[in-house]
């Protein structure tokens, strides 16, 4: 008798799993293309290199299409579906971020096409085993897409590890001293922070008896649990998320990794894991911090983290001579700004986070694309090498100028609108809570925007106002003059840069286009 009941419930459970599988078609599609690329790699070893890029793009387009279809199928007010026995939650928030992740990935693939590393060991047009690059890249995307849906601690851990391990491997793809050094540092920092996160999760499990953050008993037990252990569990787990968004005090890996890793991969790192990290942080804040019964000032805690992140990122960026290292500190600082939106917790705060992350993805990808183009020209990533480039190549100079203005947050670019939303959500949060720390955060945020002006505008300043040391740098590129001289700035890259920069201007004047889209997301976790 008992046995038959068990079998019956197992049967319903299995049919539930099959039903759930229909809702993860985008992920299944991505996985199918991962395997397809792997099989192609076995068949066409080192031949037909363009085929891999086409297949990867096709896979990403198809996944994006499926996601858009999913978006249109989910109702605006629905709470979201719990799938695979409450492992993941599919709601519009997750779908929005998954679309963002796929679109960023499309641009990353396009950026990678013409990238050539310093020693030439990473160049998708000539490199051997291009298949591995796309396989690992798709693994990272799969992890990020899962992370943006996850509400279960086990899935959060697995998704973070999938992203991390793919990242360690991708960091090493230049195969030179610098990228190897970057990847060993990355894997050591990453291993420690995920270990600490895991310890926190194990304590959370001990305190609540469940791994599912949306489970009612999770919140009940958190509310009843003793303070010190809840603090340890909560903060340790938070540490793992802060690592993924490269926020202080878990930001140490970022500068070395950004400098050493291949530039297209860095562009991806600065967008995709970060976006996924912010979704999980938002869910965690909603399910954990707001449930703690005793009077723990977690909003203040996040505010302090945001202030430290802003200060560290912006002030360290001032002294950098290498563009990629500067962009690393800049991305740390941007994490601080996005954290402001997360800690506001109002639905306007969430809206500003989504808007900021989307704009940030565009401007960061654009900036890294131009960095790649210029480093192909000058053979260096030092800011001092940017002298006089603006006069020689006005188009590149203007595009860089717009990207940098947007990163600073000045009008007329979408970066300004994004910062405006973030700060007004913070002001709203301050007025409703009267927490002085939030006011302090506002002051620091504005102050840091001014600081960031100096290092962002240093690049256009070098490009337009400093004269190039050598007259036209014929000697430096004599080897290129003989052959394909027009190779320096491929037309393809120029068009791509314009495609990335143009929306930054559009979204300033027509920001409600994106806002209306985001407004249809119900912010209930």
């Amino acid at each position, binding site marked *: 008798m008992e046995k038959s009941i068990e079998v019956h419930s197992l049967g319903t459970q299995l049919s539930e799993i099959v039903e759930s599988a229909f809702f993860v078609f985008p992920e299944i599609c991505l996985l199918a293309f991962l395997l397809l690329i792997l099989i192609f790699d076995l068949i066409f070893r080192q031949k037909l290199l363009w085929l891999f890029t086409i297949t990867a793009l096709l896979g990403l387009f198809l996944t994006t299409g499926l996601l858009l279809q999913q978006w249109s199928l989910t109702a605006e007010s629905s709470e979201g579906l719990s799938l695979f026995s409450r492992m993941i939650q599919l709601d519009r928030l997750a779908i929005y971020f998954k679309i963002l992740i796929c679109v960023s990935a499309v641009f990353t693939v396009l950026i990678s096409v013409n990238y050539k590393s310093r020693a030439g060991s990473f160049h998708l047009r000539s490199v051997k085993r291009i298949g591995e690059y796309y396989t690992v890249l798709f693994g990272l995307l799969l992890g990020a897409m899962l992370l943006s849906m996850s509400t279960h*601690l*086990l899935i959060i*851990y*697995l998704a973070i*590890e999938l992203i991390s*391990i793919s990242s*360690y*491997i991708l960091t*090493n793809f230049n195969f*030179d*001293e*610098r990228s*190897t*050094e*970057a*990847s*060993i*540092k990355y*894997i*050591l920092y990453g*291993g*420690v922070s995920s*270990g*600490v996160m*895991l*310890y926190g*999760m*194990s*304590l959370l*499990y*001990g305190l609540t*008896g*469940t*791994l599912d953050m949306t489970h009612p008993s999770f919140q009940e037990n958190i509310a009843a649990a003793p303070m010190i252990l809840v603090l340890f569990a909560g903060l340790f787990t938070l540490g793992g998320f802060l690592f993924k968004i490269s926020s202080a005090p878990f930001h140490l890996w970022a*500068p*070395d990794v950004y*400098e*050493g890793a291949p530039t297209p991969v860095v562009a991806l790192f600065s967008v995709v894991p970060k976006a996924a990290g912010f979704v999980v942080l938002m869910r965690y804040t909603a399910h954990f911090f707001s449930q703690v019964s005793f009077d723990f000032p977690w909003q203040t805690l996040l505010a302090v983290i945001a202030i430290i992140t802003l200060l560290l990122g912006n002030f360290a960026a001032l002294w950098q001579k290498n563009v990629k*290292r500067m962009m690393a500190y800049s991305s740390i600082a941007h994490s601080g700004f996005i954290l402001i939106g997360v800690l506001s917790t109002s639905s306007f705060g969430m809206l500003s986070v989504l808007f900021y992350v989307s704009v940030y993805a565009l401007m960061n990808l654009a900036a890294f694309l131009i960095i790649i183009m210029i480093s192909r020209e000058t053979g260096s990533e030092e800011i001092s090498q940017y002298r006089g480039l603006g006069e020689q190549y006005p188009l590149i100079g203007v595009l860089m100028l717009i990207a940098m203005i947007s990163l600073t947050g000045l009008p007329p670019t979408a970066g300004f609108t994004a910062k405006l939303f973030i700060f007004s959500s913070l002001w709203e949060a301050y007025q409703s809570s009267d927490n002085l720390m939030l006011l302090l955060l506002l002051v620091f945020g504005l102050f840091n925007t001014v600081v960031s002006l100096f290092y962002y505008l240093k690049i256009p300043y070098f490009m337009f106002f400093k004269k190039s040391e050598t007259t036209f740098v014929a000697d430096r590129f004599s080897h290129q003059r003989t052959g394909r001289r027009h190779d320096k700035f491929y037309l393809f890259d120029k068009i791509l840069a314009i495609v990335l920069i143009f929306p930054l201007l559009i979204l300033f004047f027509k920001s409600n286009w994106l806002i209306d889209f985001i407004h249809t997301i119900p912010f209930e976790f």
Partner: protein
Amino acid sequence: MIPIEHYLIVSALLFCIGLVTVIIKKNAIVVLMGIELILNAANINLVAFSQFDASRIQGQVFSLFVIVIAAAEAAVAMAIVLKVYHFFKTADVSEVSDLRK
């Protein structure tokens, strides 16, 4: 039955030892040993709490996945350590510092 606190104390000790190892050791392989200690500490917690979760044994399942991932991570880490040795002729992290110059 062993009281649950005793498992937790052992795991807290292992966690702290692992963390200290990570902070003070220079050799990349020893740092990885510290990371494995931290993972083991978390696993002890998970398994110990799982005793009271007999119908769902979530903790045991979680710890199984942790072991799998630790193996994957160790494999990648060792490959990178070999690569580091190939370029720098040392596995000492503090001597590996080409960046930032």
